[in-house]
């Protein structure tokens, strides 16, 4: 590209937003609720932390409306660590997202773990300089989020359970739907776009590339190094760990173990080694035992 096309510097482009997620690949992003936890996460080798008021397990246990965190708490975490800091806004709550951008967070998670603020619309993420990550249970949902400007996708699991089964279901669904698209004839992609409820151009791009145009992590229910490694082998490009670390017996050691297991996700010897002596994993809840209205992954449309 010639210099005449880029006379000045520009911020907030799709490339720097999506590029930021590329830099997180092969890494672990950890939920933290205090500066002390953020330091433990950074010490363990996290590529970023997710600042939130309550981890999903507590949101689930305590109930009530769950919102963006207190700005003081986010500031405290931003000054405690040098790695990127993400924070959650409610689905559709564009003002919470504006506040998070103004606080200087590095990524906003428009998250189903918080109580949705809009049951029809997600945030118009193109309007922001800060990039967004959004959850998805299937390819259509992922492509709708990308259309709204998401620069990173995380396949949803059932947050706060320590049960990895939903994470595997959603990752397999998304990857399977992408594989199916790559097998379709070009004139079949119009109907595929209709069925996916996603724009044709984006569907065509995914069919040609065999992957999403943005990085895809996994999230929800990951509690052990083996859980994280399995999700990587299933095609995740990195892992969000929520309650799994700080609801366990030895968070520092478990955090470090999950970081190592993600890098060496295809090496059972390493995973076996790092899985030793971690103490209690989070107790967990079986997703099947959670009544339908309390399942977080089903929020988002």
């Amino acid at each position, binding site marked *: 590209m*010639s210099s005449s096309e880029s006379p000045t*510097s*520009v911020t907030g482009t799709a*490339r*720097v937003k999506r*590029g930021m997620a590329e830099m997180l690949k*092969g890494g672990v992003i950890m939920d933290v609720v205090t500066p002390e936890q953020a330091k433990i996460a950074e010490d363990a080798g996290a590529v970023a932390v997710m600042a939130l008021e309550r981890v999903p397990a507590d949101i689930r246990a305590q109930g009530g409306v769950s919102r963006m965190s207190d700005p003081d708490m986010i500031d405290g975490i931003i000054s405690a660590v*040098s790695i990127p800091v993400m924070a959650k806004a409610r689905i559709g709550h564009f003002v919470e997202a504006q506040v998070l951008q103004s606080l200087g967070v590095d990524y906003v998670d428009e998250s189903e773990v918080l109580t949705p603020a809009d049951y029809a619309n997600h945030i118009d993420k193109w309007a922001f300089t800060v990039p967004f990550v959004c959850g998805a249970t299937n390819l259509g949902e992922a492509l709708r989020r990308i259309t709204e400007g998401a620069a990173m996708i995380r396949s949803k699991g059932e947050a706060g359970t320590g049960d990895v089964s939903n994470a595997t279901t959603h990752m397999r669904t998304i990857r399977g739907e992408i594989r199916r698209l790559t097998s379709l004839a070009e004139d079949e992609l119009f109907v595929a776009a209709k069925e996916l409820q996603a724009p044709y151009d984006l569907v065509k791009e995914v069919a040609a590339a065999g992957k999403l145009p943005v990085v895809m992590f996994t999230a929800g229910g990951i509690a052990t190094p083996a859980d994280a490694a399995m999700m990587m082998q299933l095609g995740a490009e990195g892992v969000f760990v929520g309650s799994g670390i700080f609801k366990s017996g030895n968070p520092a050691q478990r955090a470090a173990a999950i970081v190592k297991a993600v*890098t060496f996700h295809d090496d059972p010897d390493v995973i076996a080694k790092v899985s030793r002596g971690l103490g209690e994993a989070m107790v967990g809840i079986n997703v099947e035992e959670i009544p339908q209205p309390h399942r977080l992954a089903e929020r988002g449309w």
Partner: protein
Amino acid sequence: MNIGVLALQGDVREHLSALAESDVLARPVRRPEELDQVDALVIPGGESTTMSNLAITFGLLEPIRKRIAGGMPVYGSCAGMIMLATTVLDGRPDQESFAGIDMTVRRNAFGRQVDSFEAGVAIDDIPGDDFHAVFIRAPWVEQVGPEVSVLGRVTSGPAAGRIVAVRQGNLLATAFHPELTGDLRVHRYFVEIVRQS
């Protein structure tokens, strides 16, 4: 010629494809024995504190330092530039680097993600138009030793004049990510360094 990409964390795939498009055999390196099989190394973009942590844990820090001292060509982008610096500012106190290029690098120097930007950068030694450079929570170089050539600076915007590309012998570093833009000139320049080494 075998070029490895340090695959502890970061945008490994983009560097592997940029090298493949530059017609060289590239492979990921995560273990000391994989390092032994390559003639040169690329350190990708990513989180430098994570890379440092994993390089220490998995026994790569000293072997890579030794190979660099022995003349192995290395190219680092962004976090890779930090990993090549002798002095890192605004890093973690326990952060280690491969300490190849005699320079002081400031981590996240341009600011947080909302300050990440694209801008033009001219690179000495690489002919053609300015690079359309992508900076993501990028570092800059604050000081260089006598052996280091400054190859590029930001040419426009508020950060104009900042050093963002350097070379010392067989070691090359950029604060930006040519692997994200499909412009292969930096990778080809590095491959040429490897050929001549």
